[in-house]
């Protein structure tokens, strides 16, 4: 906006304002009505949805899938989708940081005098794209599992064996998924690359007994899994010893 456009805007706005109504009581009445609606919504949500309190926090637990508040789902989902470690900083820089900086600077790079939505095509396309992307990612995030999900195809040998072997493998995979192993271990495309060792080919370095021993008596800070029920424990060992 150049000086002429600024002055034009201020003059036009001055006239519209002079033709308007006083804030009190007209706008105050609308705001008050809206406040009543907001209060009614909050009270209704509180009465209908309540305030559940889950089980007490247990840092040694191994079977909890963390979920953030719903308005962080989109961020959660971005991190879940972007897996290669070289791209993770891009996701964490790109989505929140650059997004926030662009949001901050919006009035400084969009300085055109036009205010009508239908005459600001770039702004409107951006708005719809960002809104759509956030809504889509929130929806995806709401239906997604933990970012530590194991996405590894079942080896054909296990598939052919079928029956008890396959069931044990799947159970072991489920336990590994829900135990937060991937917070410290890498498994194929998933998980963090530290502080624990890479599990992708663990079975080629460690026999099944070795895996079982490590699970019972691990190196700190890894928690011991000796309290896991025998069936689940054996399933984990069976799953991990397939990772060759």
């Amino acid at each position: 906006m150049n000086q002429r456009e600024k002055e034009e805007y201020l003059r036009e706005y001055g006239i519209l304002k002079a033709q308007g109504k006083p804030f009190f009581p007209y706008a105050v009445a609308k705001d008050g009505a809206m406040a009543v609606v907001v209060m009614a919504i909050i009270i209704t949500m509180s009465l209908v949805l309540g305030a559940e309190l889950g089980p007490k926090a247990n840092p040694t637990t191994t079977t909890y899938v963390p979920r953030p508040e719903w308005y962080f789902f989109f961020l959660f989902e971005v991190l879940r989708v972007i897996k290669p470690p070289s791209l993770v900083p891009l996701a964490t820089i790109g989505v929140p940081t650059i997004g926030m900086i662009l949001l901050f600077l919006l009035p400084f790079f969009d300085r055109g005098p036009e205010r009508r939505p239908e005459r600001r095509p770039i702004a409107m396309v951006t708005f719809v794209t960002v809104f759509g992307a956030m809504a889509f990612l929130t929806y995806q995030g709401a239906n997604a599992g933990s970012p530590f999900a194991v996405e590894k195809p079942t080896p054909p040998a296990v598939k052919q064996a079928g029956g008890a072997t396959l069931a044990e493998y799947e159970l072991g995979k489920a336990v590994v998924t829900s135990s937060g192993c991937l917070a410290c271990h890498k498994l194929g495309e998933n998980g963090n690359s530290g502080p624990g060792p890479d599990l992708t080919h663990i079975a080629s370095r460690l026999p099944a007994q070795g895996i079982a021993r490590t699970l019972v008596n691990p190196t700190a800070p890894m928690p011991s899994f000796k309290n896991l029920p025998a069936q689940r424990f054996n399933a984990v060992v069976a799953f991990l010893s397939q990772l060759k």
Partner: protein
Amino acid sequence: MPKLPKLPAPPLPAALQEPPPRPGESNGKGGPIEDAKAAGINVVDWVDERTSLSGAGRWLMFRKVPKGTNWFYTLGSATMFAFLSQAVTGVFLAMYYRPDPAGGAYESIRHVTNEVFLGQFVRGMHKWGSSVMVILVFLHMGRTFLFGAYKYPRELNWVIGVVLLILTMVMSFTGYLLPFDQRAYWATIVGVNINGTGPLIGPYLSDFLRAGPEFGATTLSRFYAIHMLLLPGAIVALIGAHLYLVAKLGTTAPPWMKAEQNPELRKVDV
């Protein structure tokens, strides 16, 4: 016996009539209601004489809002109202809360939820109020964006608004840990780790939030202090600045409103 109507007082010349009471005085004829009114006016006058606040009040309340102002313009005040509701319910929750990770925190929230009169209701209001507030913040921002209301001369108010948005999100993030149940604990671990992967300040931010390299005994009280002292103060101050600028610059008119042209004003005397 029914009361007879009183005869009107005979018309007296002005010089003989009793003068009406001067402002701030009472002639004792008005009765207690008039006296109470006069007392109220006296108190307000006394304060105003020393603070000159009535001018600011008039400036704030009797400014004009432009033609075409519609219901979309209530989203900002609705957000502020949601914040007030969070503040009030939060104060009541704080009366029972103990930031003790060894079990006191969880126990105090369990006590509020299950035993305190209306405890679950107030906690529910606080919990769901945060969602309502986040939605209102985004709707308010959407309205501002669509109406081009961030443009000259209101750029600074947009920037303040973005800071308020970030503070609201941080508020929700720090509040999420406080009940100290499984969900709270693990979501916060993941959230702090995500923070740690951020550029440059990421690892330092994580260390600051955790109060160390590991999630420890002081992490909870740190989140508690940020959630209860630091952020509410910052949000209140910024809402004040936001409102000051709104009142000073005026709320925008919808972008499709055009000022009526008065042909009389366009006439040029030759």
